[in-house]
């Protein structure tokens, strides 16, 4: 048995049977990180001392047999976008280098409270802006399946850390596909919950009406377990929902007999990578054979989603990132002649090219004379995209699509052309705009050995249906059992 290849639920079972201790599991992961992360570069910060201390506490909890949860003693990684008390949090930006938060994000507090062991903080595109981790101010993470390729992004470090067996599971965030697209590129499970399902408190803001935290795991059961651990109302985030948190693992084995799966014609287009298309088409057949009904549907405003996203998300980002001014935390440029000059020089030196580009676009679309033509227009079309889904739910229970139009691309292939990079998110963005949940499940490999992802979208707060469909698919195929060899 290779400890670091186990899923959360498999690890927890061995911990409960006292066949392993959390300290042993944690040491195995730290050793694995030491052995492979020099090549994968998934972590910005590894916290071995904190991890071992948490593992000892978890072992004590398990020994007493009190207050043991499905993640007690299980080692996880978390994206470096979540504030962690006493541990550097950078959002992969020079402007936050050295920032040590005095508090934990609510999701971090919940994971710690449940007894999870946090191994460290994973790499990402700066401020979650990107689809490859190439926008990290520090380094690019490599795809464990092919080290000359990107892991996807922005939660690329999290996806790679799971695929490289450097943790049992990871916590990412998704604003336009940043959990699902890297999950697809790295052959892991990635779940973006409904907007409001999970608290955003202490998660560094990019686009507040779209951002959502979620699990990146080795299988569907783990995604259900982690969602249960982080979901729920938080008084510190007024957009978090009151909706009760069900036991997401309860219905996993229920099967999909009679489930109506919508297949939107706008997501199966000419020009898509032929191997991705073949893998997803084969996956739909598997779902049909498992008892689901495939229903042709239309989401007519799909072609406008990327445009809406790059206006709405950048406008929100330009406001959210105004707080980085060299006063309260992070770096300050040394040679500011006066206050305004200090702000400008700090922000020019502290932000990377993509972040500045998006701040510029967002500031422009909100500026006097352009607001109606850009930001307001985009917000109206966002309503039309949401209505497309409302209409679709009349004839289907979930919707299945490819997660991304291509498998993981080569490092450097798209960096010179921002617009082409934006189109990597073409199939994931609508889900954030409509606030609905979505999952990416591994659905095979290209002839070159690169993972392909199947995306399943669901009704608001119906994560259970996504998980049930993904679970039925997983049982029939077993792609999730494949591990990258490093």
């Amino acid at each position, binding site marked *: 048995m290779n400890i670091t290849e186990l899923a959360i639920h498999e690890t927890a079972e061995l911990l409960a049977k006292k066949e392993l201790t959390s300290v042993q599991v944690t040491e195995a992961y730290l050793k694995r990180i030491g052995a492979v992360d020099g090549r994968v570069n998934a972590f910005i910060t590894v916290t071995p001392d904190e991890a071992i201390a948490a593992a000892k506490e978890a072992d004590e909890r398990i020994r007493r047999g009190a207050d043991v949860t499905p993640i007690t003693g299980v080692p996880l990684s978390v994206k470096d976008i979540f504030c962690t008390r006493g541990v550097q949090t950078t959002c992969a930006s020079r402007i936050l280098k050295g920032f*040590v938060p*005095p*508090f934990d994000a609510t999701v971090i507090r919940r994971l710690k409270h449940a007894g999870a062991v946090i191994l460290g903080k994973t790499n990402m595109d700066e401020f979650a802006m990107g689809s490859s981790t190439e926008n990290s101010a520090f380094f690019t993470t490599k795809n464990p399946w092919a080290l000359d390729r990107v892991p996807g992004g922005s939660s690329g470090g999290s996806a790679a850390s799971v695929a490289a067996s450097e943790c049992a599971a990871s916590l990412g965030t998704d604003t336009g596909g940043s959990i699902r697209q890297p999950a697809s590129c790295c052959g892991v499970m990635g779940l973006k919950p409904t*907007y*409001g399902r999970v608290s955003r408190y202490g998660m560094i803001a990019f686009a507040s009406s779209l951002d959502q935290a979620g699990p990146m795991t080795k299988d569907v059961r783990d995604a259900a377990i982690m969602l249960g651990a982080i979901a729920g109302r938080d008084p510190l985030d*007024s*957009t978090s929902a*009151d909706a009760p948190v069900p036991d997401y693992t309860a219905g996993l084995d229920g099967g999909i007999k009679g489930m109506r799966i919508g297949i939107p014609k706008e997501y199966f287009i000419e020009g898509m990578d032929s191997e991705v298309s073949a893998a997803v088409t084969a996956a739909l057949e598997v779902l049909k054979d498992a008892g689901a009904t495939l229903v042709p549907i239309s989401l007519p*405003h799909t072609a*406008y989603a*990327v*445009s*809406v996203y*790059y*206006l*709405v998300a950048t406008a929100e980002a*330009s406001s959210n990132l*105004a707080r980085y001014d060299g*006063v*309260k*935390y*992070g*770096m*300050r440029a040394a040679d*500011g*002649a*006066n*206050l*305004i*000059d*200090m*702000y*400008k020089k700090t*922000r*020019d030196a502290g*932000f990377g*090219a993509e972040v*500045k*580009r998006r*701040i*510029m*676009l967002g*500031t*422009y679309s909100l*500026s006097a004379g352009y607001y109606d033509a*850009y930001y*307001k*227009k*985009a*917000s*109206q*079309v*966002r*309503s*039309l995209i*949401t209505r497309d889904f409302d209409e679709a739910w009349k004839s289907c229970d979930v919707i299945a699509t490819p997660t991304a139009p291509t498998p993981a691309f080569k490092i450097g292939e798209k960096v010179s052309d*921002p*617009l082409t990079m*934006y189109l990597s998110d073409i199939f994931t963005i609508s889900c954030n*705009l409509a606030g609905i949940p979505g999952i990416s499940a591994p659905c095979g490999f290209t002839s070159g050995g690169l993972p392909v992802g199947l995306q399943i979208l669901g009704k608001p707060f119906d994560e259970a249906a996504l998980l049930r469909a993904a679970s039925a698919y997983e049982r029939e195929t077993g792609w999730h059992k494949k591990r990258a060899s490093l």
Partner: protein
Amino acid sequence: MTLAKKDVSRVAELARLALTDEEAEQYTGQLTRILGYVEKLSELDTAGVEPAGAALNAQRALREDKTHDPVSNEEAVRNAPSVERGCFKVPQVIE
């Protein structure tokens, strides 16, 4: 929609970014291309369509105005690049 370099400089001023000449040049071309792409939205008639997002969950935004577990002054300023007597220190603002 074609942006001129002076438009980019104006936006940089609003966004408090001291762009180099080279950056301003580069962003002028890239933003023009992106704005050209989003021009697609003007194909749609959105007369009378309510903008989304504005009032998301707004009904839950109200709460009692109560303090709870404040961080200490020491903790609050610990990450600041310049501090004096427990306050954030900035370059001179008033002549």
